[in-house]
């Protein structure tokens, strides 16, 4: 049939029209591209508006168009919109091509003539390409109703409960022996100062008892196969050396265990645990873990005190790692953050001066269930500090370390100041660059601190030293800083320094991202599909993110994201089946020489070889549509829907058309 193509140039208000002479472009397309089948060419203020879409649909009907090219924003934003519009007018959505003259033209160029010229080239490329677009129908695949949640912090807990409560099964995987994450380590939560454990523990218990949740602690995901709707996830359950079916969590084993181990994880190095342990009393699940790196039996082959005393013979030193595979339709990653290592800033004295603490250490120090029972004392275990300095932005907002703002430190610093003040009456200094309190009730909390008489010094701390230049500084830690509000360098002697270490991505976030096929930002936070409009989805269908894994955020924001991710997953589950982009490779058996070059080119093993026919074939369910095999096939036997050679080769022609027309001079506009 003869092509009848409609071309639509979007103004996007002034976003495009401000730089590109849209009228000129649409006029040009209507005339110069007529020979390629363009029968109508329009420009319109907002193509994506309902009116704009109706305009297209009307033309499809009245001008009986069989191809549509829209020149507007990036396909990643509105491709679906316009394809659906065409669908609405009974035109196969894949006969619609969206080319970007905003992100790739009007927004990045200033020379109007050149931008207009480029817009014409882009449109012409789209037109030449759309001619070769084929009618396609998305592949429908069923969605497995179960969900995998990785990470048992507050974000993962929230997501898991939302989905489980909606009646669908959840596998919650946690690396540590218990769920709870960082929140379980905190004492109070800002700005309301309610006790962290009091609000977290009930949720943890719910997770532990929920019939729809399979809790896999002390476990890690090893492998992820498949695609949205049908993931096969391989999980390694590290040996607990405890028969959980027999264990009652009575605690006799860790009472009797003779081996003390410095707890660098939960107690942040502030306290000890035993070689067989639960990280904290409210741990979920209640079963302990034997730490085989430190356990005397594993080191020396003797001891077994726990085994001797266990009333239910639940200890099993022979236990081995177990590898299981679960089927899920969607995945939520909530793997959280690591704390910035304050040792990297030696001038702040952490690990050089005893009484310099990290924020996490201080959380444990002032936690009623912590090593000092909540008494705020110096490392000597008795002296109550008289003056305390809280250093903000440690490793944050600093191009030498992390350039971004860690979002929580300001409020955390204020919280610490309040707790110190309340419990010790000590004088507290906050050293800050800017105080950022952008959420509900936060500024009020700041005001409260000001009223309490906390001292605020605006200036990034230069160094902490033990060098006393004057008698008042003897035996103190001296914080040297410019008080920028008076423009003077000050040396402030304190007894205790608390470093608000920033948040950073997990040390292994790159590997995790690769494991789940999503991408990381320059700072290794996971990248969301859209920073504003799609914060919990990723570029990979069926994989969602929640909490600090996406970027630094506080508890309320993490909970919100956990719930949001759950809602997105539930939406998918309800659809029961999902339409996959029909961008797939197919092998023409007649042309295939059976050379098998394509076979090992495919990273998804989607190409199988038929020995007897001596030809290869692509499994459309496994094929992800990258097209490498197409480019690699020496016989040219493989073709790819959506990105066929014809489409691309003619798009190249189209883009260069103007030059061939010897119109290298920006067309008079």
């Amino acid at each position, binding site marked *: 049939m003869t092509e009848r193509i409609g071309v639509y140039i979007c103004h996007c208000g002034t976003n495009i029209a401000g730089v590109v002479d849209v009228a000129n472009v649409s006029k040009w397309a209507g005339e110069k591209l007529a020979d390629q089948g363009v029968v109508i060419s329009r420009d319109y203020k907002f193509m994506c508006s309902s009116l704009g879409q109706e305009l297209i649909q009307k033309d499809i009907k009245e001008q009986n168009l069989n191809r549509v090219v829209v020149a507007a924003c990036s396909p990643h934003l509105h491709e679906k919109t316009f394809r659906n519009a065409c669908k609405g007018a009974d035109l196969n959505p894949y006969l619609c091509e969206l080319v970007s003259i905003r992100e790739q033209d009007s927004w990045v160029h200033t020379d109007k003539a050149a931008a207009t010229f480029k817009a014409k080239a882009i449109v012409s490329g789209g037109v030449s390409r759309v001619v070769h677009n084929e009618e396609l129908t998305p592949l429908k695949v069923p969605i497995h109703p179960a969900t995998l949640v990785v990470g048992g912090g507050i974000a993962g807990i929230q997501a898991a409960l939302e989905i489980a409560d909606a009646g669908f099964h959840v596998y919650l995987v946690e690396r540590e022996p218990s769920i709870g994450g960082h929140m379980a380590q905190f004492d109070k939560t800002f700005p309301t100062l309610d006790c962290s454990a009091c609000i977290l523990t009930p949720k943890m218990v719910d997770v532990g008892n929920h019939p729809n949740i399979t809790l896999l602690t002390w476990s890690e995901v090893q492998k992820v196969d498949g695609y949205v709707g049908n993931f096969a996830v391989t999980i390694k359950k590290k040996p607990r050396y405890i028969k959980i079916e027999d264990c009652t969590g009575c605690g006799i084993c860790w009472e009797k265990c003779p081996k003390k181990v410095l707890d660098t994880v939960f107690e942040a190095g502030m306290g000890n645990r035993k070689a067989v342990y639960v990280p904290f009393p409210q741990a979920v699940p209640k079963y302990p873990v034997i730490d085989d790196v430190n356990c005397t039996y594993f080191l020396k082959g003797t001891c077994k005190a726990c085994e001797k005393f266990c009333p239910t013979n639940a200890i099993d030193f022979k236990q081995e790692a177990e590898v299981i595979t679960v089927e899920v339709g969607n995945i939520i990653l909530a793997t959280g953050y690591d704390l910035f290592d304050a040792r990297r800033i030696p001038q702040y004295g952490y690990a050089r001066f005893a009484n310099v603490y990290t924020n996490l250490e201080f959380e444990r120090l002032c936690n009623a269930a912590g090593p000092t029972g909540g008494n705020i004392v110096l490392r000597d275990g008795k002296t109550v500090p008289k003056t305390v300095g809280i250093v903000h*932005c440690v490793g944050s*907002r600093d*191009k*030498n370390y992390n350039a971004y703002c860690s979002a929580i430190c300001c409020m955390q610093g204020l919280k610490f100041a309040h707790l110190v003040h309340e419990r010790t009456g000590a004088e507290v200094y906050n050293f800050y660059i800017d105080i950022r309190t952008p959420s509900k009730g936060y500024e009020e909390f700041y005001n409260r601190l000001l009223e309490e008489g906390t001292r605020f010094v605006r*200036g990034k701390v230069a160094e902490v030293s033990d060098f006393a230049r004057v008698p008042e500084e003897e035996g103190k830690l001296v914080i040297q800083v410019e008080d920028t509000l008076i*423009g003077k*360098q000050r040396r402030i002697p304190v007894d205790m320094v608390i470093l608000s270490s920033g948040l950073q991505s997990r040390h292994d976030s790159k590997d995790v991202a690769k494991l789940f096929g999503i991408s990381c930002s320059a700072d290794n936070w996971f990248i969301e599909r859209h920073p504003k409009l799609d914060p919990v989805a990723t570029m990979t269908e069926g994989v969602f993110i929640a909490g600090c894994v996406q970027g630094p955020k506080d508890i309320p924001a993490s909970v919100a994201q956990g719930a949001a991710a759950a809602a997105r997953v539930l939406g998918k589950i309800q659809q029961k089946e999902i339409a996959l982009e029909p961008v797939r490779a197919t092998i023409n058996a007649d042309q295939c020489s059976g050379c098998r070059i394509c076979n090992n080119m495919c990273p998804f093993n989607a190409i199988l070889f038929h020995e007897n026919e001596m030809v290869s074939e692509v499994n459309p369910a496994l094929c992800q549509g990258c097209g490498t095999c197409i480019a690699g096939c020496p016989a040219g036997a493989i073709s790819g829907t959506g990105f066929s050679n014809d489409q691309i080769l003619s798009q190249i022609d189209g883009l260069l058309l103007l030059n061939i027309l010897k119109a290298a001079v920006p067309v008079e506009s």
Partner: protein
Amino acid sequence: MVDELAFNYEITNLMYASHGQPITNCLQCGTCSGTCPAVEFMDHTPRQIIGMIRADLKEEVLASNTYWTCASCFHCTVRCPADIDVADMMYALKRYSMWKGQFQAGLIGPDFSEAFVKMIVNSGRSFEPLLAATYLPRYSARDIVQEGLMATGLVLSGKMPLLPKKIKGLKKFQQMVRRIIPIGEQS
């Protein structure tokens, strides 16, 4: 677009090889001034100077002794969270003020640098005793006496030779210098 003539752009341009970030990136955190070992002797802290430059307070900045008080210890530079080469900015200001011949009265720095360079250009090497001559007049009588005593002490202890050395390839050396700056004619 910003006015190219703005003082802060002049300064930025003067920081030729400073591969650090432009001072427009400064977040006024005060790390430089909190670190600076000589800050007590400065009219304005380094952070304030950056602020003043950005406010185009040219006269005030040039009139300040801050940049001539910089000891070039580069501690601010390595600590700056905005990756600004603050010490190099101080050099830029020194160059600018010498170029404009505009600086706080009574400062020794400008003359010293001038004299130092002259000496290098004339001999190829630097030589402490000669330098003394150029700046001593600026000192109080007491200082001069002390300086004298010390100098003699040094000479006696053989720490200080009595005559300067000249390098052999001086001619070519000076031609080389003339390819860069006009100053340094034989004197």
